[in-house]
């Protein structure tokens, strides 16, 4: 399952990230925020408009806003 398909509130672990589909700077920023393989995350909010973009992801005690394209590059396994 990809991160953007995760039901709201469901805890999950990032199993792998397809860095190749992301712009290098964005990949670096996601890593700096801790969104990397092994991180425990959950989806907190989705936007309202077309595509329900962007997403708010909880990691540790932080909430990070990102786009669906970023979340789609991350494969997660539910915990």
């Amino acid at each position, binding site marked *: 399952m990809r991160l953007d398909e995760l039901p709201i509130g469901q805890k999950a672990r990032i199993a792998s990230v397809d860095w190749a589909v992301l*712009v290098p*700077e*964005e990949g*670096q*920023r*996601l*890593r*700096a*925020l*801790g969104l*990397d393989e092994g991180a425990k995350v959950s989806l*907190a*909010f*989705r*936007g*309202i*408009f*077309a*595509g*329900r*973009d*962007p997403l*708010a992801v*909880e990691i*540790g*005690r*932080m*909430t*990070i*806003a*990102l*786009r669906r*394209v*970023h979340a789609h590059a991350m494969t997660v396994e539910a915990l």
Partner: protein
Amino acid sequence: MTKAIRTAALVGNPNAGKSALFNALTGARQKIANYPGVTVERKSGRMLLPSGEPVELIDLPGSYGLDATSPDEAVTRRVILGEMPGESRPDALVIVLDAGNLEQHLVFAQEVIALGRPTVVALNMVDLAERDGLVIDPAALQAALGVPVVPTVAVRRRGLEELSAAIAAAEEHAGEPADPRPHVNQSERRLTAHAIADGAILSETRRHRLHSRLDRVLLHPWLGPVILFALLFVVFQAVFAWATPFADGIEAGIGWLTDGARAIFPAGLPRDLLTDGILSGVGSVIVFLPQIIILFFFILVMEATGYMARAAFLMDRLMAGVGLSGRSFIPLLSSFACAIPGIMATRSITDPKDRLTTILIAPLMTCSARLPVYAVIIAAFIPARSVGGGIGLGFIGLQGLVLFGLYVIGTVGAMAVALVLRRSVTKGAASGFIMELPKYQLPTVKDLALGLFQRAWIFLRRAGTIIFTVTVVLWLLLNFPRAAPGEDQVDASIAGTLANGLAVVVEPIGFNRDIALALIPAMAAREVAVASLATTYAVSAGDDEQTALALGDQLKARWSLPTALAFLAWFVFAPQCLSTIAVARRETNGWKWPGFMLLYLFVLAYIAAGITYWGALALGL
């Protein structure tokens, strides 16, 4: 004997509460400047050590690591490493950690500590962490990090004395010079951070997080945007309604000064310069100080509480629709106060095309300098009655509604321009949106007051320098050469001659000679247009009785409604602000983009004013 600490720098992740700590440590003794060669703001201030020795404290931009991607983060890296030209390496580093977000913030902290500089850690916002059910042992953290750890609550001024004592003694706590340091990569640091955080956290009860409950409402898929727009609407109503008594007070004060000057000085040109030139010109701008303070108050509160990032989240999808991201929302919202800080805030946008587009549309956001122009025209031409009274919405005033409408036109115009630009001159890959949503916080009165004071001071300094100079020059141009008996003074003057030439160009869009006259000095700053009109009508009025008429009444007597509306439409788009053009040149490193900005905005302004004028005439207004 260890070396005395003369300079110290605050470093840390964004949202660690660095600025609040900086304010608490330095009080009002702050200096805001720019780093040479780059446009990153350099905030420094003086703090006192327990010994009474002063230390220059620098507030560095928030950063996630030393391998920076944005210009802001590059400044942080270069200052810490002593590579910044003209900036000596700080004697001590103060790492600011959010106690509620240790695991994340310890990643960068390890990187900084590994440099082996004299370092102190401020474990900030311990009260918020405790509210979240998190108890941290500073001693365990200190043992793990090898540098002193001081718990602080910047906004409550807790732990400040202990922190300054630790800074004074920082030299003794320099770590082992770790250079050349073994290569430690990001994920290893992350694992260590996790282990250190685990070791330092004494207890972690089930998170009852106030901010996630707030987010449930404020980021609600459909409630969130409704709340955001309602909030923005309230802001604009407040700007108009709350400011009135204060503005009336200032106006009365200026009237009193003018009367006083008339009573004291003999009639003549010097007295006219004081009353018609300086007092009526500068005074007509200062009147808007209350409105500007109210607008900045709301923007500062939204920033300090953490709501601004939520607004960016809510707006991201809409911004994506025109090829921008939610990150552009913050610079654009700041541009409602002033395009200059707005354009400077675009530095946090990593994508260059995105950033350029945001810079180009920032002047379309209705800045506070337009308020004086809008306010004077609206007050003169739009009746102060309520609309929607029949449907129980009697509190909505027509004047406030028109003001809101002008803001909407500017914003919609900006979005339309962004859409066109992203498909033409700033074409490129669609940009992403990644940002941290900080915890909600109550802003402190002191931080708000300090921020408001700094903004008000900048405005007053402009009124005292640029606007003062322009007003005096305009008065001189209006009064010389002197008119022959029976001839109108404005027609005879140098300014009148210039304006008559420009009037030919602007007549098709409904502007008269007086407006043409006001537009020339208004290139310096938009609000000068009001000052210029006030000066012009004060000069042409001739006798004292007519001068006493308020500017609004003068306008009502001399302008038609279509002209007034066209004037408003012009100012929605016209790039009449030298400072904005100068800052755009600095941020884009050349004249190409500011030149483009000037051209497209003038063309838009001309078209908009023309459509408004002829449209209003056709409707029989």
